[in-house]
């Protein structure tokens, strides 16, 4: 108890003297706020990107691609193969007995971002009627769905926000054809919200394609056994050379390269900044103990131990660090959270739009970083303060 009391006394004494050392203390707070702000906002970017892909698809659904292809863009599924896949047992059926399977065309169209004019690879998906029953998370929030057989498109909410000319009623020209935007859809914030959707048959004739890129279906039995049965059916059929993946597995793979790249960038920058901030904190704490040399020596002369001195210096450093971490996290949250952006996902060669996500876990991680920097910056000065012989401290001050 006595030690705790001593720690509290000295720490309070220290904290009261902060106003007289405002400049130095501010350096610590701002330095650490910078580290945490940059770390949290960059990680919020990869978090948002991963979240978008991770919320795409359901485990009970599969995407079928040509064996050997890792993305829809490089895959090709001929019409007769798609028909075969649609009649397989193991695929769920709707109330009317029609299979829940959609063979889809996936191409890219060039569209500028809002207010710019450079072309971006915006994904364009031609879907079969069952696509809406399969992906029941999709809702048209503005306008109406496209009609079959007509050059009409519906646009994902995120694509409509990022790219020029994708509002309901606007007309867009692609490849000797003009299309009308008739609706905007949401699908739970997933990657499809970055896409433009149209009727597969119309899209195929307009883009002069004879085959599809992928086939998406709902499994009748979503368990491992159900999936294995479908895989076996396909493997036994010599006309098919098709790879079956659960949707979440397929989309998680797409997040890997870019997600890792952003993380590496965020962490490397933050590590350097943290080293810089540690030097700043060391500087601050050294000057703090230097300015209180006499007080500390006096306290020790009247019987305060070395441990309370160390603890009090550490506590001060940690409190300043915590303040810095809180400021940095708050700035990242205010400035970034929910901000939307789009980038080229190398894995699919197409644009994906997403939002910064400043999560609690990220904020907590930022605070941990702040405390580590504070501890690193406080330790050496604390030890020096406790070690300096009382007589020397009183004489050289």
């Amino acid at each position, binding site marked *: 108890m006595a030690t705790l009391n001593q720690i509290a006394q000295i720490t309070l004494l220290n904290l009261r003297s902060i106003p007289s050392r405002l*400049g*130095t203390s*501010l*350096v610590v707070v*701002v*330095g650490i706020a*910078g580290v945490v*702000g*940059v770390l949290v906002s*960059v990680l919020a970017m990869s978090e948002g990107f991963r979240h978008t892909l991770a919320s795409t698809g359901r485990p009970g659904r599969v995407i079928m691609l040509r064996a*050997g*292809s*890792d*993305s829809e*863009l*490089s*895959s*090709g599924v001929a019409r007769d193969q798609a028909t075969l896949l649609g009649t397989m047992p193991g695929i769920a059926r709707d109330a009317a007995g029609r299979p829940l399977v959609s063979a889809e065309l996936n*191409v*890219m*169209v*060039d569209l500028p*971002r809002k207010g*710019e004019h*450079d*072309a*971006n*690879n915006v994904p364009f998906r031609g879907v079969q009627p069952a696509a809406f029953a399969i992906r029941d998370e999709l809702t048209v929030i503005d306008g109406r769905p496209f009609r079959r057989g007509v050059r009409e498109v519906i646009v994902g909410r995120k694509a409509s926000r990022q790219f020029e000319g994708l509002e309901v009623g606007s007309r867009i020209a*692609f*490849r*000797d054809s003009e299309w009308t935007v008739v609706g905007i859809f949401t699908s739970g914030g997933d990657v499809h919200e970055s896409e433009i959707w149209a009727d597969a048959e119309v899209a195929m004739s307009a*883009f*002069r394609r004879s085959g599809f890129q992928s086939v998406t279906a709902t499994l009748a039995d979503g368990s491992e056994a159900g999936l294995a049965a479908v895989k076996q059916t396909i493997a036994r059929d010599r006309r098919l*050379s098709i790879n079956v993946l659960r949707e979440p597995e397929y989309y998680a793979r797409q997040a890997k390269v870019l997600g890792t790249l952003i993380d590496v*960038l965020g962490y*490397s*920058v933050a590590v*350097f*900044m943290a*080293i*810089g*901030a540690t*030097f*700043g904190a*060391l*500087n601050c704490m*050294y*000057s703090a103990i230097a300015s209180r040399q006499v007080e500390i020596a006096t306290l020790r002369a009247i019987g305060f131990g070395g441990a309370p001195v160390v603890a009090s210096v550490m506590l001060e450093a940690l409190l300043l660090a915590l303040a810095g971490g809180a400021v940095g996290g708050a700035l990242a949250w205010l400035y970034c959270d929910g901000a939307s*952006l*789009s*980038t*080229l996902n*190398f*894995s699919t*060669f197409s*644009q994906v739009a997403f939002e910064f996500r400043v999560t609690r876990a990220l904020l907590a991680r930022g605070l941990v970083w702040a405390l580590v920097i504070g501890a690193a910056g406080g330790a050496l000065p604390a030890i020096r303060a406790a070690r300096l012989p009382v007589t020397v401290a009183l004489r050289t001050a």
Partner: protein
Amino acid sequence: MIHLVWAQLFRKKTRTVLTLLSVIIAFLLFGLLQAVQVAFESGADAADARRLLTTARYSIIEPLPMAHARVIERVPGVVGVASADWFGAKYQNESNAFAVFAVDPARYLDMYPEFRVPAAQREAFEATRTGAIAGRRLVERYGWTVGQKLPIASEIHAKTDGSLNWEFDLVGVLDAEDPAVQANTDMVLINVAYFDEARQSGRGKTGWYIVRIADSSQSRAISAEIDRMFANSPDETKTQPEKEFAIGFARQIGDIGALVTRILIAVFFTILLLTGNTMAQAIRERIPELAVLKTVGFSDRVVTLLVLGEALLLLALGAALGMLTAVSVLPALNGKTGGRFPPLFVDAETWLLAALITLALALVVGLPPAIRVGRLRIVDALAGHR
């Protein structure tokens, strides 16, 4: 004089060294991040103003007929045409581990005089149907040797037997002297004559055309003329100068420049506070000494300059050491990322920018205490009034 500034600076060793280390880290980060930004823009820097790029009008992924080459060739002002097609490589089970282009060897290499291929290897590439040449950084990363078989799968193109597994003969190595150009050699080139014949579908089509023109000032007119040739045909084109294409492609990724700038603003703002605080502390402690200097005959201006010089020395020393560290760690970093990421390097512009930032920081940090000290009255200072 310098000696005096130096002595002032290291009066409190710990404080100065710690501040210096922070400045070094800041400029190290600056050097590295600028290098990343430069690498992203290097496509545009390495662009040749006398090269145009012709792609399908509505999307780069749509193929164009190979027959377009003969039409483009006849457009006045065009002196050469080469085509390239995206192979969609998968190497050791990694998708897009590197770029593979199917090209006509002679036409393609003529288009890029900045690439270096030994004459004998170039001849071998032209003469070998299954031949391939690869960028030096890729060759080093995978430990390939000239003469070996190169097994590369395609995610897009099946051979006539239905297999996606292709094999080529590595006959040469491609390199470039300028690091900005070297980024463009991180690829494998294969012979389109063999590729087009051996593939199952898509025969007679290619991905895009590279067009060489005689006069770069004519690039817009010639681009428009090429596109006019194919207007209202089933395969309309979009032609633009290579540089514009490169900039546009970099923009697809997003505004890397803005991201880097924001991070650097946070970094330098912290450094500003840190060094500003160090300087203020250092000067405050030295007021009596500075007054003594004035007493023994140093003019106000000289004392002002002394203080300013101290700030400049601290920042310049940190900036130089930080930038040199950045320069010395980059080669090792490049060795590790070879071919996966363009080579990073610190260009002249980055050095210039570093110098300007140093100067600006020194002024902001050093000027207020310098002026205060310049105005200091000896009597007050010695008496302890501040």
